């Protein structure tokens, strides 16, 4: 995911720290939220199956005498998982359930303040309305009249279940009431600096003014992925555009051009000119 991607750009929100720096958090989109939730449901069901197997094994070893005890554990366990699974994990330092962690998401307050236990409880208590109530109506009987009532109830509940799709920030009801939202919190790896090598080729001023910042970041992606075919194609186009004949290999040429172009654009940036892209003539 790159910030220059226009679909991501739309989901960037301001998060200004008390030190006055905007951290530009990226909101999770609906599919990521749903993916995280689906993963969590899978984990909950797996845990319940685990509990059941343990319960059956225990019942077998105790010769059926512990049955009541096991049923108790099962009822409390399923209730506990349903109500406290989300709350427990979101109260940890990562503020995310396992599903959200896998998707690289976390919960945060919309106003940037500390996430409190109360807010976490509220946003998850609302799940009762968003998920479990519609599910109840979904599985309610099929007799004629009751069926119709259930259908209308389901439609009515659907408003809550699909609420995140109808607002800009992808908030569900629980998020609105608790004042939270779900943002990207991926762990990024700091890759090596591509401009580490000294220049192996000199370029003219015109050659360096052919492209802007957008093209530079595309070139950065190409150099980090190091796909030979892409590099060959990109190198050919750049050579044609700037009219350079050199004996270098594609990788070396691109690295040299990247370093020189970045140097040029960064220098102009220091003097207050951000050359957006190649169409930005100034």
């Amino acid at each position, binding site marked *: 995911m790159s910030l220059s991607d226009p679909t991501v750009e739309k989901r960037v929100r301001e998060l200004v720290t008390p030190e006055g720096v905007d951290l530009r958090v990226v909101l999770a989109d609906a599919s990521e939220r749903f993916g995280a939730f689906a993963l969590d449901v899978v984990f909950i069901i797996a845990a319940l199956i685990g509990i059941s197997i343990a319960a059956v094994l225990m019942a077998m070893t105790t010769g059926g005498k512990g049955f009541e005890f096991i049923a108790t554990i099962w009822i409390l366990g399923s*209730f506990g998982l349903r109500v406290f699974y989300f709350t427990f994990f979101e109260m940890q330092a990562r503020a995310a359930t396992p599903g959200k962690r896998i998707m690289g998401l976390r919960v945060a307050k919309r106003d940037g303040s500390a996430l409190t236990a*109360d807010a976490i409880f509220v946003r998850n208590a609302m799940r009762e309305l968003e998920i479990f109530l519609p599910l109840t109506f979904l599985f309610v009987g099929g007799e004629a009249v009751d069926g119709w009532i259930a259908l209308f109830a389901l439609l009515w509940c659907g408003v809550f279940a699909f609420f995140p799709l109808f607002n800009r920030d992808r908030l569900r009801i629980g998020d609105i009431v608790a004042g939270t939202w779900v943002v990207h919190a991926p762990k990024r790896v700091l890759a090596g600096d591509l401009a580490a090598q*000294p220049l192996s080729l000199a370029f003219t001023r015109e050659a360096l003014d052919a492209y802007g910042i957008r093209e530079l970041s595309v070139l950065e992606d190409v150099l980090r992925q190091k796909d030979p075919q892409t590099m060959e194609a990109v190198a050919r186009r750049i050579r044609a555009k700037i009219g350079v004949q050199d004996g270098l290999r594609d990788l070396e040429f691109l690295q040299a051009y990247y370093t020189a172009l970045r140097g040029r654009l*960064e220098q102009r940036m220091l003097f207050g000119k951000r050359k957006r892209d190649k169409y930005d003539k100034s």
Partner: protein
Amino acid sequence: MESLVLKSHRFRAEREADWKKLEVLLDRFERGRGGQLTDDEVVSIPVLYRSALSSLSTARAVSLDQNLIGYLESLCTRAYFCVYGTRSTFFERIARFFRKDWPTAVRDLWRETIVSGLFGLLGVFTAFFLVRSGAQWFYAFMPRELSEGRDPSASAKQLHDVLFDHKGGAEGLTFFSSFLFTHNAEIALLAFALGFACCLPSAFLVFYNGLTLGALYAVYFDRGLGVELGGWLFIHGVTELFAITLAGAAGFKIGWALAFPGKMERLDAMIKAGREAGLVMVGVVIMLGVAGLLEGFARQLINDTAVRYSIAALTAFSWGAYFYLYRPAR
């Protein structure tokens, strides 16, 4: 041509070690609630965080390395949540909840509690008088699986037995009480969550809960078992009905903030209401746990109406004193 090494490259080379240090500390913090960090390391996090923030500002101004800026943004965001996250530990939080937050939140909700209680009472009276005027009303209010044979066609002897005769002592009680707890907790959560739709569904749920109670009471009252049923109900019912009333009240609070936000913006009003109501709801789940224990154990083991009433009175007094007499410093 400019200098051989870019300024942004030198900038990065100078600060990279600090970023890596912060990243390692954050990894450890996120893994284990900060437990394994030494004091020095904890103190160094805010310092490293501020220097990373300043690096980010600088990087945005001098560097066009997307990977670097992305990395610093993610690092700073993680550190920000660590530095400005919740400071208190899990147990301090729990202690504060019982000492101050819970009773205060419940007391602040007194208006909604009265309204919610009135809806419940209204349900009780409605069902009581309707069932006494015509027995067939009973079946309209009482789901068949809940009545368990306690309906108008049952004899006084049968009805009496339900209240007192529990053959087999403690057998099956843990199962029974855990079942009751989860069932009631789900109703309470629903009453709360439904408040979001402008109070009405919450009101209906509380009212309906009252209806079943009133219908049951009418049946027993007609057989002259009103007092005994009272003992059977109130030993746990004081706690349970209070909890459900509070859940309804919390729902009202949110619904009211949505419908009439006052001078605040609708969203802000609801966040504020949601915060207070959420505290009450945590407490409601605890109360229902207590009610489930009383219902599952105390009621089944104690078969004397006077003792049942005294336990009911004791719980009523305890909850009342805790919520309304006990005044923690604000």
